């Protein structure tokens, strides 16, 4: 099989998945509307005159905006396609396993990119001031964090039925946002929540995001990154096992 053919298969799969996502308003609208609406009302509306708060919220919201599309796009959608025996047909077809998964990832990233980009535009016009590289770094981190949440979602999607995966993804989504301090700063919450935060990827990503956007000094970057890498490795291994098991 030629390299060109393989690349074309990957490309078409990604394009089709993006198209399919675009045509699913029940998934598209909440993924975009939730972070944008929250940010518009709370971040810009209520914090008027306190640019620092709008700035900090942006740093947290780029992570928040990446969780739902990545986890639901990979968790609930993979589970639903598995239930509809769509994946089975793709596993028989001469399609490399990676093409299906990367296609799904591309669709999730496209949606996250749109959400994060729109957040950035809102923040810019709402008065948040950063140097260009800080803008780029903050928004890119939101996009990159989607990969990690997609891997976590994939574990749910390959292991649970479509109902179960949706419910579990919802639960994790809320836990990540709340305990990760993305919605409410951790220092105004009880201290025990801070301990839970340590094990959520959203907390570490949120901290890195605050540093990249210049609100916190760079500190313990290695610590945050090692937790994130550990979670990513565990998720990759977990999803490999689950994929093999259903392909066997």
């Amino acid at each position, binding site marked *: 099989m030629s390299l060109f053919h393989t690349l074309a*298969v990957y490309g*078409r*799969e990604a394009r089709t998945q993006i198209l399919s996502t675009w*045509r699913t308003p029940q998934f598209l609208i909440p993924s975009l509307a939730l972070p944008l609406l929250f940010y518009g009302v709370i971040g810009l509306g209520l914090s008027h005159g306190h640019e620092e708060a709008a700035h900090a919220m942006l740093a947290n919201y780029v992570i928040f905006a990446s969780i739902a599309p990545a986890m639901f796009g990979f968790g609930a959608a993979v589970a639903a396609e598995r239930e*509809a025996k769509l994946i089975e047909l793709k596993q*028989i077809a*001469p*399609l490399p396993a990676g093409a299906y998964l990367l296609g799904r990832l591309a669709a999730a990233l496209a949606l996250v990119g749109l959400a994060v980009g729109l957040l950035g535009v809102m923040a810019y016009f709402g008065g948040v001031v950063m140097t260009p590289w800080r803008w780029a770094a903050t928004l890119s981190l939101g996009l990159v964090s989607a990969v990690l949440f997609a891997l976590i979602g994939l574990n749910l999607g390959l292991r649970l039925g479509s109902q179960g995966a949706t419910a579990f993804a919802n639960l994790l989504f809320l836990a990540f946002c709340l305990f990760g301090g993305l919605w409410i700063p951790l220092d105004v919450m009880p201290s025990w929540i801070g301990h839970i935060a340590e094990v959520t990827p959203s907390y570490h990503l949120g901290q890195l995001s605050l540093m990249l956007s210049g609100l916190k000094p760079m500190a313990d970057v290695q610590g945050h990154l090692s937790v994130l890498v550990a979670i990513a490795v565990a998720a990759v291994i977990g999803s490999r096992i689950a994929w093999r098991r259903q392909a066997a």
Partner: protein
Amino acid sequence: MSPGTYAPPIAVLQKTIKRRGKTLALDGLDLAIRPGQCVALLGPNGAGKSTSVALLTGRLRPDAGEARLFGVDPHDLEARGRLGVMLQEAGLPRTLTVREQVALFRGYYAKPRPLDEIIRLAGLEGLERRRCGALSGGQQRRVQFALAIAGRPDLLVLDEPTTGMDIDARRALWTAVRGEIARGAAVLLTTHHLDEAEALADRIVVIDKGRVIADGSPEAIKARVSGVAIRCRTRLSDGDLSALAHVTGVSRDGGRVTLLTSSAPATLRELLARDETIDDLTVSGASLEDAVTRLVQTGAAFPQTQRQIEAA
């Protein structure tokens, strides 16, 4: 004799054993499909048809024995490139149009059919722009068929292909399958409709309890059940019926009973004498369905004596 009798087989299950949960789905099953053959795999529910198909399409691996497709592991990408599959319960993405979905699958193959040819062969003209989610069950089956033939496969696996189709759609699909066979493709067909097997297959393999109990041309299978089928409504029990003179098999379908007999006059005389309420009586030559039913009944009782391997 089918055209590919002496060519090397393209799909092989050799002494395959597969457990599914506590049941032994395949119990040393042997099956070889040669180029250009249309093989119908028949048998009661749970006989091992779906498991055989899953093994040959690489979705399951045998616990023991071997599954080979085009001489390699069925999971191999090269083998999958020469295979077209229509699964029994596969879904379609609701949000994509027929044309988009067919174009996507066609793109997986190195030398696919032209898109318009696939649409025409599968009878999907006029439906190209419809979303798959808005199609009827029969139309969705046609899209599944389109996906199966998109890569001009050398082996076409059709698992209950006409479920949910009306009569016209069934006949159109049969015509399309015959076209694939004429092109040189081998076909593996599983079906509950014996008329479908008779219309398409040049070889019938009857399996039960995970093993082959008969294998031959439709004529040869029917000839295995010499005799006549008596159909009627009767109040006699199965035990009474099988005790009648010359009866070789008893089966029920709703309220009607089918008796296979080697001497219709003798059986009829006794039957009419034993049950004066008898109704709805017909006498005809044994059909393929009668033959398969009978083979399954006796094959289960005497697997060794009834077994005939590679009769084709």
